[in-house]
C-alpha cells in the first residue's frame, strides 16, 4: 500500500468512527423512559395510526346495510 492509499484509508476510518459516534449519540437522545406500563402503552397508542382506508371501507359496508327500522312514533307521525 502506497502512502497516498494509506492516508486515504486512515481518513476513511476516521470518518466512519465519527459516523458511528454520531449514530450512538442520536440513539441515546432518542431513548424514552416510562414510569409505568400504562404510560408506555398510552405513548404507543398515541403513535399508532388507524389505517387510512378503514373509514371508506366502513362507509361502503354501511351503505350495503338494509334500512334500519323506524321508531313507532316515526311510523305513526312521520319525521315530525
Amino acid at each position, binding site marked *: 500500500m502506497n502512502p497516498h492509499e494509506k492516508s486515504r484509508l486512515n481518513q476513511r476510518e476516521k470518518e466512519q468512527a465519527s459516523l458511528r459516534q454520531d449514530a450512538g449519540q442520536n440513539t441515546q437522545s432518542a431513548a424514552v423512559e*416510562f414510569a409505568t406500563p400504562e404510560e408506555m402503552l398510552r405513548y404507543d397508542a398515541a403513535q399508532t395510526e388507524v389505517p387510512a382506508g378503514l373509514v371508506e371501507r366502513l362507509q361502503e359496508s354501511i351503505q350495503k346495510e338494509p334500512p334500519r327500522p323506524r321508531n313507532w312514533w316515526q311510523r305513526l307521525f312521520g319525521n315530525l
Partner: protein
Amino acid sequence: MSAANTETLVEPAIPESESEAPKLTRIPLEPAELAAIYEEHARPVFYLALRMLGDATQAEDATHDVFLKAYRKLGDFKGQSSIRTWLYRITINHCQNLLQSWHRRHIHGTDDEAIWERAAGPADSPLRALETKELGQRIQTTLDSLPEEYRLLLLLVADEKLSYEEIASLTNQSTDAVRGKLHRARRAFATGFNRTA
C-alpha cells in the same frame, strides 16, 4: 388457561348479541353521528384490537366489524354506559372470539399467574426503550407473553378515559380485584419487557 387461574378477569368470549347493548328504546342514528363516534373512538378501538390480536391487518378487520356492529346496534344505546365502554365491550368480545379460534392452533405465552408471580421484578423501576418501531414490537412481545387478563387490564387502564369502575364492569369483577391484579400485571409487564431488550 391454567387451573391455577380460577379467578378469571375475562369471561369466556361470547357471541355479540343484542343483549350486549342496553335494552332501550331505539333512537335513530344519523351517518353524521356515526362519523363523530368513529372520529373520537376509532384509534382506541383499533389500538385495543391491535394489541389484543398482535396483527395490524386483523386489527383493521376487527375495527371495521366493531363499528359495523355498533352501527347496527347503536339505536338501542341510550347512555347507561359511555360509548367508549360499550365499543370496548364489543371489541373485547370480538377479539376474544377470534383468539379462541386461533388458540386452538397456536399457543401464545402462559396464563399461569404463578409463573409470573415467581418471576416478577420490581414494578416501580422505569421502563426504558428506544424511540423506534422496535418499541411497538417489544410491547407486543411482552403483552403476548402475559396472561390474557393482565394484558387486557393493562390495555384498559392505559386509556385515561376509563374509570376503575368501568374497567371492573368490562372485566366482570370488582374494582378491588382490578386494583390488586393491576399491581401484579404491572410487575409482570416490567419483567417481560426487560427480557425483550
